[in-house]
């Protein structure tokens, strides 16, 4: 199957998300779709997979104009998309998810479907227990299930949206092997939406780059054999970055500064959890230090961070913040003494949907009974200015884009905290926005704050951390020498492989 997109336009209000996109995808090829946040790559893929209609333009499958609306119609035409957060039902078992969406019959015919599932997963080396509930599965397994499900429905074009976020290096190898087989041996079109350049260079045969809704370039990737030297990779990467941003970004370096007195000390800290067997954690964070926590989602790092901020129950051990035991403190008390927790769920925990930027400012202004709106308005305006937020005082927070919401969140942090505990501070942001966030954070480090953060982006961890702790199924290990650790090694560690 070959696909051609002709003159695709899509507007959201004033934003021209896709502006006259023309592109061809041929069978047997793995194509990377690159672009920074808001470049329009997700929109384009949603149009192709039927989740959104295009305003203008045509989709041609094998040179015929095909008109379809809705994801089911797209699948019927052979185009299926694996979402970043796979669209499965958490309360269902693997088997039920596999069956649901197929067409034949009233009853479920479980045995037949189970055999089919087993057959398909064996073909790609996936390990899926048909009777596990989805809620107990790792992201990687949910992706595998979704891929198998789409293949069973006869999909010939497979679109994957950021599939390598939150999975380990080994899981990535399995996924990439399967994708290579699907494209190169079975002739499928595989489209990979990603902002991880290493992955794109490793996997893709060619890339298409979007910037501000416009297609700015196409490029063949160097053949991914053994001759893929690090020099070639670095050069390709530079070319891609230039295409994506229209400028050459310098690699960001950690500024050097003094590491000071201990801010947070945990000794044999055992965090309470029903599902994980949490091992004791001993860690000291010093002023000026950045500590990165690596691990697949739900390996215990989130619980540990919440325990440090006293938002999670502690079973045993010692915890002290700024020289005082904080086992009996509440987060409110710690916050007043300079410990700040930033949650990953921007709109769920970090910010309040429905409140305006001004109202958010008022929440963090002083504790007086009556709000001085005039001065709060001024503070808000200066925050917008200083943090380069695209928005106005009277905008509610959900009207802002994700990147701007994150800027607001960072802008609301106190100027001189002693400890910042941050969940995924740059989740979903493009390289440029992420760097900007880190500049702000490191400034606070320089003034004496300690930072503890987690991330599913291993490059971010390696770049910014002084020390890294790897969490795996409730266990924790400190990485011996961060400067000598590669992203690949870290990727194996978060999958539980600590030996090499």
């Amino acid at each position, binding site marked *: 199957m070959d696909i051609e997109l002709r003159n695709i336009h899509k507007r959201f209000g004033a934003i021209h998300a896709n502006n006259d996109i023309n592109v061809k995808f041929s069978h047997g090829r793995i194509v990377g779709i690159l672009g920074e946040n808001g470049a329009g790559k997700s929109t384009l893929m949603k149009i192709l997979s039927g989740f959104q209609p295009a305003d203008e333009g045509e989709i041609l499958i094998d040179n015929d104009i095909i008109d379809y609306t809705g994801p089911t119609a797209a699948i019927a035409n052979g185009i299926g998309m694996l979402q970043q957060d796979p669209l499965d*039902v*958490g309360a269902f078992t693997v088997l039920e998810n596999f069956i*649901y*969406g197929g067409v034949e019959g009233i*009853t*479920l015919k479980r045995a037949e479907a189970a055999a089919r599932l087993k057959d398909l997963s064996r073909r790609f080396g996936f390990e899926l227990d048909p009777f596990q509930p989805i809620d107990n599965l790792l992201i990687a397994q949910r992706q595998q299930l979704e891929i198998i499900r789409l293949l069973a429905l006869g999909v010939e074009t497979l679109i994957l949206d950021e599939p390598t976020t939150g999975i380990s290096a080994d899981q990535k190898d399995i996924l990439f092997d399967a994708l290579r087989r699907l494209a190169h041996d079975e002739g499928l079109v595989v489209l990979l939406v990603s902002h991880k350049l290493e992955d794109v260079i490793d996997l893709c045969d060619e890339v298409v780059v979007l910037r501000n809704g416009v297609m700015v370039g196409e490029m063949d990737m160097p053949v991914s054999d053994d001759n893929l030297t690090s020099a070639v990779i670095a050069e390709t990467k530079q070319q891609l970055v230039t295409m994506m941003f229209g400028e050459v970004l310098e690699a960001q370096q950690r500024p050097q500064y003094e590491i000071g007195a201990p801010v947070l000390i945990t000794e044999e800290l055992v965090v309470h959890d*029903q599902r994980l067997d949490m091992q004791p954690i001993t860690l000291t964070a010093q002023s000026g230090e950045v500590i990165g926590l690596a691990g697949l989602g739900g390996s215990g790092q989130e619980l540990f961070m919440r325990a440090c901020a006293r938002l999670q129950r502690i079973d045993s051990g010692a915890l002290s913040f700024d020289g005082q035991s904080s086992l009996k403190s509440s987060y409110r008390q710690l916050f007043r003494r300079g410990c700040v927790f930033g949650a990953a769920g921007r709109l769920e925990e970090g910010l309040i949907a429905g409140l305006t930027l001004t109202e958010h400012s008022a929440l963090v202004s002083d504790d007086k009974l009556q709000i001085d709106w005039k001065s709060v308005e001024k503070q808000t305006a200066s925050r917008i200015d200083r943090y380069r937020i695209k928005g106005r005082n009277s905008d509610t927070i959900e009207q802002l884009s994700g990147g701007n919401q994150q800027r607001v969140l960072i802008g609301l942090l106190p100027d001189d905290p002693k400890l910042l505990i941050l969940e995924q501070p740059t989740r979903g942001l493009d390289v440029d926005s992420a760097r900007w966030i880190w500049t702000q954070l490191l400034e606070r480090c320089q003034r004496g704050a300690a930072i503890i953060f987690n991330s599913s982006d291993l490059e971010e961890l390696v770049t910014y951390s002084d020390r890294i702790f790897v969490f795996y199924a409730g266990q924790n290990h400190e990485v011996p020498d961060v400067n000598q650790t590669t992203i690949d090694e870290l990727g194996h560690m978060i999958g539980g492989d600590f030996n090499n």
Partner: protein
Amino acid sequence: MNEEFLNTLGSIIGTATPLVIASLGETITERAGVVNLSLDGSLALAAVTGFAAAWTAQEMGLLDVPMQLAAGIAAAMIIGALIALLVGFSSIKLRRDQVAVGFVLTLLAAELARFLGADYTRIPGPQITRWAIPILEDIPVIGTIFFQQNVLVYFSYFLMFAIWFWLFRTRGGLALRAIGERPEAAYARGAPVQRLRYWYTFLGGALVGLAGAAYSLNVKPGWSSPPAMQGDGWIALAIVIFGGWHPFRAVLGAYLFAALRAVSSNIQTNGLFIFGQEINFPFVLLNTLPWLLMIVTLLIVSGGLTERLLQYMPRGVQHRLRAFLRSDPPKALGTRFEAE
């Protein structure tokens, strides 16, 4: 076994039946992601409508008795379904809050029932009578308890199995559960999310209407003000939670509640004897007993207490027990869905 005791159990099954039907109806509505909070008012309005329709048919000499009753039941089901559709329409189409709309409709329907029912207060009308199932009724113990009842009770047995089968054994059931858990996933698989939500809200509402008719045509025949079933709508909503949105557990909950009620009314009539000693205390408090126990069980089933208790069990058993006691509500319950 003691014949009198068996008869008591049988009457508990009988009086529990409206609760069974109402909570089964609400279970499927909530499985689809819609909360119909109007149950308490719906029951009353359906009861008075059902009674009025059957009585009018009788007075006018229309139809024979079974058909008069059928007319009453049909009228009640239509009322229940209409109120549910209002909840569905205002949340799906008008994007209003389901809880707020349901709550207002509860009050409206209850008051409407009082007002419209004024002319029908305390007059005799047609009743659904007992009809024992031949052969089955002769089975020792079970026959006396379960098969010397009326048609509505037999229908409630059928309903429980039918809903269970639909939910867990058919593709349609997968779609029903999916639209309540993650409508986006259901949409991506081609389910007409909004249409299915309307349909299951309608169906659940019709069953609530049937439950209303079960009061006025059988369990507490006739109409009185305040209505005999006052409060049972809320109980049915609690039973849905107690039942973990599972039809078998919901039915168990309804029977348990009816049994507690029977115990407390028995004590009130006959007094409480422990070791032949009569215990004296304000028996009126016993009326609160079923409610109190309902709250306690709800706390155990849906609170963190189960988790804490489970911690003392060996790890292997924990896993299975938790699955059995699973009481997570459908994840998209009470939320709106919009296709992108």
